[in-house]
């Protein structure tokens, strides 16, 4: 965007051209620290941990006399059921609070499980090479041949619904995301001098993988894991929505969405919108955090 005044006088150069406006300074600070996502995730963790104390009602048992109550700010709402009730008279707020526990549990555990599995296989594949590598890579290719959600649905249909099954499924479906990337990194790390030295010095392969390779790929693994939390939560919500995820009466947010769908046309919007809002906020926070972490841990990207 050049104007006719293409030239600034050199003497006053330093003083004038890059004075950061106040707005820019604020933006810069906000970029550095991911306040928003951290806040949300902290709230989530706190809610999940203190659910028993925070929830005003029992999330799984409701009072049929108070079915379909709207949230407090609408007509017929009351402070007793702040966010309304569902078709079984269960308090939405309590269900959301306990649902946080489930989402957190599933999201984080699934990520860790998939991450551990994927990273281990990735390291083995990259480091040992040979037929181990070939087998794992073919397996990865075959796995990636199907879209993740489809695969998850397949597993879920055939297994019993339930939290732990979901976590297992998510781990089994998403490990490939890690394996590929980690393997690539290991391949280049293998050529580094300190790895070669360790081999020459007679360290066992396992020891090398554990002490030298693992810490260096941990960064990438964590980045993928944080970004995967969102994916895990959405997949779990999808599975619960379809009826093959977490089983009722457990208050998984995805399940609440499914249960609330039929009430939409009647105008019972809070049954679906509120759990959906929760899902959105948590996934958004996880993605923002993951994105921030990715930029923070890669010194090259930080300059941008």
């Amino acid at each position, binding site marked *: 965007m050049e104007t006719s005044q293409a030239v600034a006088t050199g003497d006053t150069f330093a003083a004038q051209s890059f004075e950061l406006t106040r707005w820019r300074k604020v933006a810069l600070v906000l970029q550095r620290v991911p306040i928003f996502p951290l806040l949300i995730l902290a709230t989530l963790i706190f809610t999940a941990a203190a659910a028993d104390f925070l929830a005003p009602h029992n999330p799984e048992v409701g009072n049929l006399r108070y079915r379909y109550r709207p949230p407090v700010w609408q007509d017929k709402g009351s402070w007793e059921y702040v966010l309304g009730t569902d078709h079984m008279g269960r308090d939405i707020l309590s269900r959301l609070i306990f649902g946080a526990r489930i989402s957190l549990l599933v999201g984080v555990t699934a990520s860790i499980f998939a991450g551990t599995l994927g990273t281990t296989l990735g390291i083995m594949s990259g480091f040992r090479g040979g037929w181990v590598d070939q087998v794992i890579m*073919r397996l990865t*290719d*075959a796995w990636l*041949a*199907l*879209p993740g*959600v*489809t695969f998850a*649905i*397949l*597993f879920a*249909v*055939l*297994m019993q619904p339930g939290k732990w099954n979901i976590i297992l499924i998510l781990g089994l479906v998403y490990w490939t995301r890690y394996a590929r990337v980690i393997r690539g990194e290991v391949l280049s790390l293998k050529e580094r001098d300190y790895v070669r030295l360790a081999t020459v010095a007679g360290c066992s392969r396992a020891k090398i993988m554990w002490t030298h390779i693992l810490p260096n790929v941990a960064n990438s693994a964590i980045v993928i894991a944080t970004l995967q939390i*969102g994916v895990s939560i*959405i997949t779990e*919500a*999808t599975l619960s*929505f*379809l*009826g*093959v995820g977490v089983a009722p009466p457990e208050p998984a947010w995805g399940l609440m*969405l499914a249960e609330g*769908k039929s009430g*939409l*046309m009647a*105008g019972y*919007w809070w049954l*679906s*919108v509120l759990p*959906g809002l929760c*899902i*959105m906020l948590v*996934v*958004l926070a996880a*993605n*923002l955090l993951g*994105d921030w972490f990715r930029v923070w841990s890669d010194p090259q990207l930080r300059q941008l």
Partner: protein
Amino acid sequence: MQGYIIRRVLYAIVSLILLSITIFSLVRITGDPAVLMAEPGAKEEDLQAIRREFGLDKPIVLQYFVFAKNLLKGDFGKSIYYRIPALDLYIQRLPASILLATVAMTISLLIGIPVGIFSAVRVNTWFDNFGKIFAILGLSLPSFWVGLILILTLSVYLNWLPSSGAESWKSLIMPAFSLGWVFTAAHMRLARSAMLEVLGSEYIKLARIKGLSERLVILKHAFKNAVIPVLTLAGINLVLMVNVAVVVESVFAWPGVGRLLFEGISFRDFPVVQTTLLMGGVMFVGVNLIVDILYAYIDPRIRYGN
């Protein structure tokens, strides 16, 4: 190049075999396959008949080959609920899904490409930041939630659009938008990074040196080059869309294969479920294979190289 193509075809076949094995084994691990294929409340002799038909009394390996043979013949079992071959049912519903996916893809490209390209041209300005937020939102909002919100606002409160079924073009808008939402973000991101890369290339520099106006540089030289990777991704995503449309189709009661899967799950109609998943896998693998082969023709490195 021959080697490349042969390898790709082999991978595809192996993937499909693995898929079928997975279904096959999972079914047997988690329960009695005869029960799954039969109606609820079937009597013992019905179960026996099914066992004979599908060779379930034979050794496992043989069973698999019978299974595979049936699949290749096009026999995916009969829908318990509809009582017609599951494959026929699938093919009946497929056009609706393809229509939905095509419209959704068009929407996502019409929005995603211009936003992405403009973000790259005005990189690091407020528009770019707005675009980045838009992209993250796209990845964070589940498609069914977008669908539910749309239904609430446009159907329940404003009563502009129908919330289910497939009567007119109006019923297509909301599901297409919900389905396309996530992909809009992905296409926007790719368009942006592709454009940024193109803008840094030498021929763009030369175009400027020639004295072309900035508008011409972007529209004529940069745009064409940047759009190519996006369209490639879009092609692959089209099939992906058909597969993941399960939820959107269920929410909007759109009569496609996604909704078929949902019905299959709800009514415990296992042959239908099996068919939908298998066919989804076949299409996905197929399209990826075609794209890989096409690439072999376009990318000179693969053509003439190792």
